[in-house]
């Protein structure tokens, strides 16, 4: 297949010369999954071995910190020395995790994180910032996809926590999602970055989805955000505490803004966003934003489906479809209506969608190539 594609590209004048050697480190997903599962078990046992000597290190937290830094450095060296070696990659990942655990143990002890006092939140914030700095460093120096994914996830989780703690809790999800969408939109422009771009892009999307599920299913009150600091606005700006609990609508509107932005960018990419189809797409997006006021997961699902389809990324589009279905049924389930009224609403919604499809078949039949 690659021979035909390269020849085709050469024929169209897009490339020249011999076809580049294809790197063979892209194992099938099930081999990588198998490696990941086994690697994690190996790492857990190694961490267990490290933790078993923690008792000896209590009181020597600086020693633990130095050992942790040393372990991380060893991991970096092993990664760089054996880039294509699976054994060394697994071993280095386990060493890195052990080193990071020792570092975290050292920091937790130095900060007296579980001690008494009013500044527990400040200590948590400090821990998050240290985590971000450490993981950023590891992200750039370790040339391994799995480790970069790990670092990106930890960075994103820490950033999410800090945003919630600094009063941005109503906008955290939409800001993270916007960041992820922004990176995915640059996937082809910044292709030379490789997994340095895709790992944070995936991390931002996955953590946004995690936040969406936690906010929706673990907290029945949508105004309860994950680990948010309820007194931040009062302490920082003297604003009343009612400002802290921002309306859910603002959260939905900000996510809607991300959707509208994405649609506009995709239409502009297609080259003719002022056409009839383009205007219809914008109007449909506004409708989607309105629906998102009642079903926040709907907007997030639509965003992921659109960006996934636009970039032929099945992971994103599949995730988006699952979110769409789950959150729509969650919405109907929680409606304070009886089964008869819910059935009527569902049938009406379904028929409405089918009518839209029918109208679209009339206005824009399949097979007719219109500018969008």
């Amino acid at each position, binding site marked *: *297949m*690659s021979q035909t*594609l390269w020849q*085709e*590209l050469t024929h*169209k004048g*897009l*490339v020249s010369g011999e076809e*580049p050697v294809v790197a*063979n480190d*892209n*194992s*099938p997903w*099930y*081999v990588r999954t*198998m*490696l990941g599962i*086994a*690697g994690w*078990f*190996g790492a857990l*046992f*190694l961490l*267990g*071995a490290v933790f*078993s*000597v923690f008792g000896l290190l209590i009181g020597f937290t600086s020693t633990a910190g130095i050992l942790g830094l040393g372990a991380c450095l060893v991991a970096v060296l092993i990664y760089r020395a054996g880039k294509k070696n*699976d*054994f*060394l*990659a697994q071993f280095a990942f386990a060493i890195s995790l052990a080193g990071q655990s020792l570092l975290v143990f050292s920091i937790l002890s130095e900060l007296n994180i579980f001690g008494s006092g009013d500044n527990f939140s400040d200590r948590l914030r400090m821990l998050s910032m240290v985590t971000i700095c450490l993981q950023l460093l590891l992200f750039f120096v370790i040339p391994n996809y799995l480790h970069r994914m790990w670092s990106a996830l930890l960075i994103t989780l820490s950033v999410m926590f800090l945003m919630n703690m600094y009063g941005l809790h109503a906008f955290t999800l939409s800001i993270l999602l916007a960041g992820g969408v922004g990176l995915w939109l640059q996937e*082809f*422009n910044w*292709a*030379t970055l*490789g997994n340095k771009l895709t790992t944070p892009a995936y991390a931002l999307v996955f953590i946004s989805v995690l936040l969406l599920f936690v906010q929706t299913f673990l907290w029945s009150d949508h105004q309860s955000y994950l680990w948010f600091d309820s007194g931040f606005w009062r302490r920082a700006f003297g604003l009343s505490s009612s400002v802290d609990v921002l309306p859910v609508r603002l959260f939905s509107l900000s996510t809607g803004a991300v959707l509208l932005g994405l649609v506009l960018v995709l239409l502009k990419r297609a080259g003719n966003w002022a056409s009839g189809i383009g205007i219809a797409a914008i109007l449909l997006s506004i409708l989607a934003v309105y629906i998102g006021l009642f079903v926040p997961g709907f907007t997030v699902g639509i965003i992921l489906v659109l960006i996934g*389809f*636009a970039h*032929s990324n099945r992971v994103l589009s599949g995730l988006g479809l699952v979110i*769409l*279905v789950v959150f729509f049924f969650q919405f109907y389930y929680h409606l304070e209506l009886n*089964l*008869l009224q*819910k*059935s009527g*609403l*569902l*049938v*009406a919604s*379904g*028929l409405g*969608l*089918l009518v839209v*499809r029918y109208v*679209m*078949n009339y206005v824009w039949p399949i*097979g007719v*190539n*219109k500018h*969008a």
Partner: protein
Amino acid sequence: MRKTNRQLLLEWAEQSSIDGRQLKDALNVGGVLPTVSDWRGFLDKLLLYVGALFVASGVVFFFAYNWDDLGRFAQFALVQGAIVAALVAFWMLGLEKLSGKISLMMAAIFVGVLLALIGQTYQTGADPYELFTVWCVLILPWALLARFDVLWVFWLLLLNLSISLYYQVFGGLFHVLLGGEQMLWILFVVNTVALLIWEWVVTKGADRRKVRWMTRLLATVSGGLASTLAILNLLGSDESSFSQYGVLAWLGWMALAYYWYRHVEVDVYVLSIGVLSVIAIVSVFLGRFLFSGADAFASLLIMSAVIIGLSAAGAYWLRSVVLGEQS
């Protein structure tokens, strides 16, 4: 594994073999970026499937609301009518079309609804396993007729459920053998036989690429059960039960799977399952000795090294198999 055009183009771009300014054109040549027609088709399918799902759900909710008010005969008429409608749709669409096979599958599902309604209406006192067993038997001719892998998976699921539910009620054969372990053995035999029959059918002419997911699903279930039996054997101390044959069964399964999926019909997925199983069994075997007295630190360290080493060796071997197939 062959890379998709998307993977190749992005890899070439990362290597700077394609100019960044040409990448979008290259993606269009490779058919990676969706065209306007693709978007149109995507929107059409999205509206159709989601709309149909909502309408179907609304109909279900409607009947759920009115169910108690419907008389006994109306309830039976509805369910039986649904079965007849699905069969008529199947007859009209035909066996060769996917929609025809799906219609037959819907009829098979409605048979279960009918059986549940019978049990609920007449309070027969039947155990749940009896419902699933009868359901299995009744839809077997349709499964044979349809030659539809999704329907076969559904049928196997019902069979596995029947066996599991049976052992929830009856703890074992004459209460002599451990119910749970005997259940695992029977499930292992059933699913392994299913895999063997499936492989026999596939070698008779089906396009293996199209049914690969079914092979992999059956191999995963069968291999998982074999591994579980081996682990029970390693951890158990009861020598009077079947548990002592767990490792033998696992070794037999591994030998057969290696021979078939390495030398006859190469399937790297199944080989990966085998590698993961080996890692699990060796770890349990080692752990049994290491953690019964040795120093915790040393034991954990050795376990870690063994797991990491085995997984790396396994990945290296799997990669060599993949490269061998590609060349």
